[in-house]
């Protein structure tokens, strides 16, 4: 029974990261109708940003979060504005393949620069934890969850309150109407994509705190993000949060009872079940 609670807690803790990853993915998918297969590589870049800052200047990873966010935002903005934009309204195959190609480019570039060996970040507080009853909680994971929640909340606020945020939501509803009202769609599209990348980068930093780094580490996150979006519904911040938490818990239980190393299989089964039973997602509309 104790294992149950431990798994549950672990699942929730990691679910926060999934939520942030999924949020960026969901924004891009929901607003621009692009399924960004390079999203995982953005997560990876965020993680390596933290690694570089930590190993070179001993910057605490939590402080790297804004840095990674900004760096990835700019990167994502440029990628969208100068590359993806050419095919942003094309059929799915085109954008799928384009982002897939970008992903290959990015991952292999990282492979060249950072080499394939596994790296990690170990801070002073990495190993410390506390206990509630028979459940052990690592401080790092708890902080990670809190940061994730903060990021999610900030995103929600920004989208609903800020001028740009509202313009983006208008654009999502009707791109032609928005364009006619003077909304600079090309710029906003790039902003949205940049946000998606920035969020992925921030999530990457969070990942680097508890997991090891490798250029290919981002791949499973695309599947995760997709499953979370399907679970939680597209285009909603709450959906990404709830979906992320649920998925984290499912994975934790899956690892426990089916075996580690089968995370992808668990993700896939969850995805299939949800798609078959409720194609609209548990909370909202799961996209076209």
């Amino acid at each position, binding site marked *: 029974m104790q294992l149950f609670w431990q798994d549950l807690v672990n699942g929730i803790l990691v679910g926060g990261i999934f939520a942030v990853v999924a949020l960026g993915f969901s924004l891009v998918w929901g607003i621009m109708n692009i399924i960004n297969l390079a999203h995982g590589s953005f997560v990876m870049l965020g993680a390596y940003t933290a690694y570089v800052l930590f190993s070179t200047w001993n910057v605490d990873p939590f402080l790297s979060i804004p840095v990674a966010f900004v760096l990835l935002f700019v990167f994502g903005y440029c990628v969208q504005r100068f590359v993806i934009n050419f*095919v*942003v*309204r094309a059929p799915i195959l085109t954008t799928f*393949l384009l982002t897939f190609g970008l992903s290959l*480019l990015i991952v292999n570039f990282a492979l060249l620069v950072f080499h394939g060996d596994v790296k990690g970040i170990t801070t002073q507080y990495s190993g410390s934890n506390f206990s509630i009853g028979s459940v052990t909680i690592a401080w790092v994971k708890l902080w990670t969850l809190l940061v994730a929640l903060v990021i999610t909340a900030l995103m929600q606020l920004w989208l609903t309150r800020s001028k740009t945020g509202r313009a983006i939501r208008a654009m999502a509803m009707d791109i032609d109407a928005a364009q006619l009202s003077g909304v600079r769609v090309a710029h906003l599209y790039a902003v949205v994509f940049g946000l998606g990348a920035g969020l992925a980068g921030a999530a990457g930093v969070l990942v680097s705190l508890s997991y090891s780094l490798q250029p290919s580490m981002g791949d499973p996150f695309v599947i995760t993000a997709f499953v979370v979006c399907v679970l939680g519904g597209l285009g909603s911040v709450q959906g990404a949060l709830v979906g992320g938490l649920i998925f984290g818990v499912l994975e934790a239980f899956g690892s426990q009872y089916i075996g580690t190393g089968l995370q992808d*299989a668990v*993700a896939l089964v969850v995805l299939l079940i949800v798609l078959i039973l409720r194609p609209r997602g548990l909370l909202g509309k799961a996209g*076209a």
Partner: protein
Amino acid sequence: MRPGRALGALGGITGNANALRVTVAILILMVFVPMLHSGYYENLGRGVLMFATLSLGWNLIGGYTGYVSFGNVVFFGLGSYTTAALWQHWHQQSIVLAVICAMVVGVAFALVLGMPILRLRGHYFGIATLGIALATQEIVSNVDWLGAGSGFTVRPVDAYSTYYYAMWIVCAASMLATYLIARSKLGYAFVAIRENEEAAAVLGVDPTRYKVIAWAISAAMAAAAGAVFAGANGFIDPPTAFALDNNVFPIVMVILGGVGTVAGPLVGALILTAINETLWSHFPQIHTLFFGAVIVVVVVFLPRGILWLFNTRGGWKGVAGSLGAYRV
């Protein structure tokens, strides 16, 4: 007067007729490669044939039917493992048996998984197939009967060139099948789904049924290629069987050669293999990097394949036009 099959500018759904004739000629010439008595060229040629088969398979579901699969490597892997299992557990070396069993396994897998996931639209199918490929690799790594993480050796048939000819037959059969399908009612069902799935349904085409059929045929092709590969390679383990290259390259090859044509896959396989070989010898480190760049360039500038450039409706003006059409 019998109205001919409409051969519009793109050559109907079989593709440009001249390109097809040239490609078939090249295919026939490739039969003679083993007679060069060069291990290097035989391996290279076998590789081209293997990739061409994988591309032909992908072309059916991705090109003709418009459902992008990011996981067709799973059928290749299952086919490879069929050969490996046949040898390890039943001491069967026969290539023919391996290919047939592999196709059965591949088709069964596609039918079982296809029914649920092909019910949905393109987006979901794409990622679901990616998930399937990753998940299957994981599962196989954990199953002892299939050699788990360390894999199996496969004792090759003594006459090594047999594998070359086997791969040639698999490739030629796949190309013939594609040609026949493209000219038949089945081919039109696929294309109708790609062009407008709802309109196709209105005209009586059951989308799920035909999507599954397309995927199953592509599975059979990939599995057959995998079955032959395993014997030729002599060794199969999860990373080899489910290699990312075998998943991605076929897609790029088809796009480069021309999506939804009969000749496209082989053309793309030839061009990209040639480029790959050149790169390998000069810049071994960056060849996957290069492929990422190729995908990006091809998708943005040449979405209809290289033959589009030589087409009256296409040409450089067509490229410029398509650049403008999709941007914001």
